[in-house]
Structure formats: C-alpha cells, structure tokens
C-alpha cells in the first residue's frame, strides 16, 4: 500500500531586518556613532533575509499546514520589512519595537527574539546569513545558543524530514565545496544567498496583510539586555586616490589618457 504523508504541522519563524538601501550615499552624524537619516532615506529588507523568507515559503508550498511567522527587531521603520515578508506570503508578523535609533547589538536582537520564541514551539528558525549593513552574521547563531538549539550557518540547501524530526542541510564553504549536516528539529538555519530566487510581494498578499493584525511588542531600553559591545566611532574610509580631470582639446585629452594608461601598465 502506498504510504500517505501524515498530516504535518510545523511552525517556522523567520528573522528579518530593515536596512538602509545599500546604494545610498551615507553621511555620519554628529555623534560619529551612527549615520544621518531623515524621511527621504531609502530603506529595504535586508537582501539576505529575502532568501530566508523565500525558503520558508518554499517549505510551506511543499508541506501543507506550515505557518510562517516573521519577526523584526528595531525602530518603527523595521515594520516595513515585516510587511514586505507578509506581502511575499508569510502568515503572521511580529515587530519588537526598540526605542533607540542607531546601532543595535546583535546580542540584544538575538536575546529579544529568543525570549519571544522560547515558549512558541517553533520547529525551524530561519535568518539571512548576515545583514548587509553590518555584516556580522551573529543573530542566527546567537538565537540558537540562547535557546540551546542546533544551528547551521550558510545554508545553501535544506531538506526537511518531518517524520524523522530532522533537517538535512548543505552548507556552502570556500572554493565551491559543501559540507552536509543533519540537524534534529527544532533548529536554526542561516540562509545563504543563491539558495532560491526570492519572489516579489504580490498585490493579493499585500492587501491580505493589511487585514492581518500585526503583533507589536514594545521594549524600553531598560528592558533590553545589556549589549556586549558598543560602537566607538564610525569613520568613512580615507580617500586613497583622487580623480583626475583631464584638460585640453579632445586630442590632447586622449593623448594624456593614453599616457596614464601606459604609465599604469594597463596598456603596453
């Protein structure tokens, strides 16, 4: 007799972050500890997190009865990352609002997510492999540590075995190699780019998300765990080279350019 897949329920939590659009020209503010932002500053969901949301959605397409919660920790603007994930097709959104703008320690973020998740029975927690603004890649592994869960980073392939309560993972390592792991559920995976092709939010989901109630948790600074590090100072890299504007007629400029290219051995 062919075996029929048993009814399977699963809860996935995806951690997302709203970051400043990477193509924006940034200016360090007067405190020298953060960058200047205003109403016109463009933000977007961390690209790495888009892959994590997509992977959760692909799991949901494969297994019925999967629900996807999306969580973000940060100031008011962070809600947009959660809304985008809902627009992509996630089921529930949670926004942990922190009071302060500016640098948020990954330990604080991970602690707040872990304390939210600890009694919710998530089977799988996904996060982008890092955030494109600070590139620390700490939140996922820290959540795993705080909740005493197994963790795989840089996941480039995953296959769930719900009946066995495990997930098979391939990690991307240097030189195009992969190593393979099997983790028992619940587990935390940080998702590498290229694992899938993140979808764009659909209008249907954006409109559906409008009707969904977003869970908002306000956390004052005093309720937050003490960060383990602090920002000393932000600095723009020193200009190592300055541009040269060539002067003269078109022919003279062409001759100068040719000389420069020869001097730098770009042309021989």
């Amino acid at each position, binding site marked *: 007799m062919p075996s029929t897949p048993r009814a399977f329920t699963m809860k996935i939590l995806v951690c997302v972050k709203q970051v400043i659009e990477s193509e924006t020209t940034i200016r360090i503010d007067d405190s020298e500890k953060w960058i200047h932002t205003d109403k016109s500053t463009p933000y977007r969901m961390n690209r790495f997190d888009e892959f994590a949301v997509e992977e959760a959605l692909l799991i949901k397409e494969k297994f019925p009865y999967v629900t996807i919660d999306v969580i973000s920790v940060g100031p008011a603007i962070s809600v947009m990352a959660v809304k985008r994930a809902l627009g992509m097709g996630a089921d529930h959104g949670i926004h942990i609002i922190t009071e302060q703008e500016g640098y948020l320690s990954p330990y604080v973020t991970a602690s707040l997510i872990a304390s939210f998740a600890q009694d919710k029975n998530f089977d799988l927690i996904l996060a982008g492999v890092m955030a494109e603004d600070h590139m620390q890649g700490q939140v996922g592994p820290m959540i795993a540590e705080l909740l005493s869960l197994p963790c795989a980073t840089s996941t480039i392939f995953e296959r769930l075995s719900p009946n066995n309560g495990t997930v098979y993972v391939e990690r991307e390592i240097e030189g195009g190699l992969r190593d393979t792991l099997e983790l028992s559920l619940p587990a935390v995976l940080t998702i590498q780019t290229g694992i899938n092709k993140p979808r764009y939010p659909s209008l249907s989901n954006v409109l559906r998300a*409008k009707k969904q109630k977003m869970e908002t948790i306000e956390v004052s600074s005093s309720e937050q765990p003490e960060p383990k590090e602090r920002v000393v100072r932000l600095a723009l890299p020193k200009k190592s080279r300055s541009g040269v504007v060539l002067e003269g007629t078109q022919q003279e400029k062409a001759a100068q350019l040719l000389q420069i290219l020869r001097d730098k051995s770009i042309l021989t």
Partner: protein
Amino acid sequence: MDFSFTEEQMMFKEQVIRFARKEIVPRVQEHDLKGEFDFESFRKLGEFGILGLHFPENLGGSDADVVTTVMAGESLGEAGVDGGLTLAYGAHTFLCADTIFAHGTDAQREKYIPKLASGEWIGCMGLTEPGAGSDVASMTTRAEKKGDRYVLNGNKMFITNGPVADVAVVYAKTEKELKHAGVSTFIVEKGTPGYSAGKNFIKMGVRTSHTSELIFEDCIIPQENLVGQEGAGFLMAMQTVEWDRSALLAPFVGGMTYVLNKCIRYAKERYQFGRPIAQFQAIKHKLADIKIFIEAARSLVYRIAWRKDQGRPLNHLDAAVAKLFIGDWGLGPANDAVVLHGGYGYCHEYDVERNFRDSRLAPIGGGTSEIAKKIITKLI
C-alpha cells in the same frame, strides 16, 4: 475628494518599480533596437501579477481596484519600461482579456482568463480595419451564421500583438446592413483554420510591441465563441475606452517621470560654460514644463480610474480630454527631453530618444487627437 494613495498602494508601487528595474528594464534597449517582442519580460509581467491585476483571485488575478491597476502601469513607465511592452500589456489585458471577463460567459472566463492573466497566452483585439479606423461602424469583416457556427471573412489592421497572439477578440458584422448595432464580438484562437496574422510592421516607436494585420478567410468559429449577444459588440468596444483612457495612458505618464529624472540628472552633470546646464534658465524651464505635463496628465488618468472604481459611468468629455492631452501635449515634453540632452539625446543609448519615438503613438492609437477634439467640441 481624496487624492492620497494608501500605504498598500505605495508599497505595491515600490515593488513594481523595483521588479521592473531589475527584471525588465535591462532588456529594453536591446529589444527596442532589434524591434523584437520580449517574450521573457511579458511572461515575467504575468508571474509578478501585472497582467491579471484587476481580475478576481479565482481567475488568477489579484482583485485590484482600477486606481491600483493604473498605478501599476504608471510605475512600469516610471521604472523605464518601454512603451512597446506596456502597449503589449495594455492590449492584452484590457482590450482582449477584460472584454472576455466583462462580457463573456463563465465558461469563457474560466477557459481564457487564467491563461491570459499568467501570460501563458498572449491576447490581442481586432477592431480597426484597412478601411475602418476612426469610423469603426463602417467595418466590413463579416461573421455569417451557418447553423451553430459563424464564418468570418475580412481583414483587421494595425493589431497590437497580432503576430504573437494566442487568442484574439475580434469584432465583425453579423448584420451587414446595420451600422453599430450590427457589430458582434468573437473569440478566435490561434491555429483556427482560416485565421492568420500578417507580418510585423516596422514601426517608428513602441518597437517591441508587434503589430500586424489579421486575416480571416472562411474562418469557422463555434457558436460558443460569441461574446455576449449578437449586435452588442460596438458597446463592448466602447467600454474598453475607459481602460484605454486610464490604464493604457498611464505608462506614457510614468514614462515621462522616468524621462524627467533622466533630464534632471543629466542637467546636473553636464557642464557648459563652467557650470552645470541645470543652472541655465532655458534648461530650468524645460524641466518645469515636463513636470507640469506629468502632474496634469496624472490627474486626468487617475480621475477616470477613480470614477470607474466608484461605479460611475465614463465621462466621455474627460476621457477625450485625457487622451488628447497626454497624446498631443506629451509630445512637447518628450521633445524637450531630447533637446535638453543635445546630441546625446538623438542617440539610441539615451532613453529619451526611445521615449520620443514611443510618445508619437499616443495621439494616434486608440482614437486620434482629431476625433478626441470632435468629441470635446460636441460635448462642451
């Protein structure tokens, strides 16, 4: 009146622009230069949900209102999508699919709308004929009833998507002697014996949209492919005008925003006489003129969209004003953008050149400016 967009609409707009910039715009110049229909981009529009935006979810759509649908078209233009692809989308979704959706039977809707909404099938609409342009009722394509079938004979002309269409909504006379009241609407599928499309016309602009003749030679159509009642075709064709004057015009308006942004950037970067040309009054005036056109044009198309959302009948005066304004008044700003770019503006590499060529269609397609003026003077 509330002129603001909702947060969801703004979020969707941002997504459309982001999607189009990444997935479609990098392919525009190459396809425009070659005059090729971009099947991949068209399919991506379907995947993203643009092609079926206003259809119900159970037919593969997103249940969008008209304002949001118009906004999607404007956003495609704003992102830099060419007028050819947006025209192909407009003809497909609003002139073909929407006619089936609005007037067809449940069976016709279920058969065609999901495939058209996803982009699996491409649609076109055949109304204009070699001898019947603005004077639609003088069409000579005949649909003769023989038992439970119709036999179509005649030619249609300048049909957007003609050479690439899988399904055509075709208007033909079932009563030869009658004028408007003799026109009926049929669905004709590619591959039907007696139905063929001519060669793609080489056009001045909107070059990625393919345009051809449709030829019907004893083309036998089953009774079930009649849309609505016999003789109701002219009204159906006129009902597409609402879409034509809003969703089909919106990409032209968005395209001008794209061009304006290009102009602003160029004017700041281009130095002459020791300063950026943006500091010269003649250049400032051109930028202001383009912006004035955009804002007035937006008000006109969104007003028509908003009225449709409210369930109000089309105001033909407003529709004619919108069509005429965007068509005729848009040519000045499109020209200004080329002039502002100097010699570069005349080169294909700079998108203002393409926009200039694409814009020339607006006063012609879907009703000429001369006819719009005729309507305006009749109604004032």
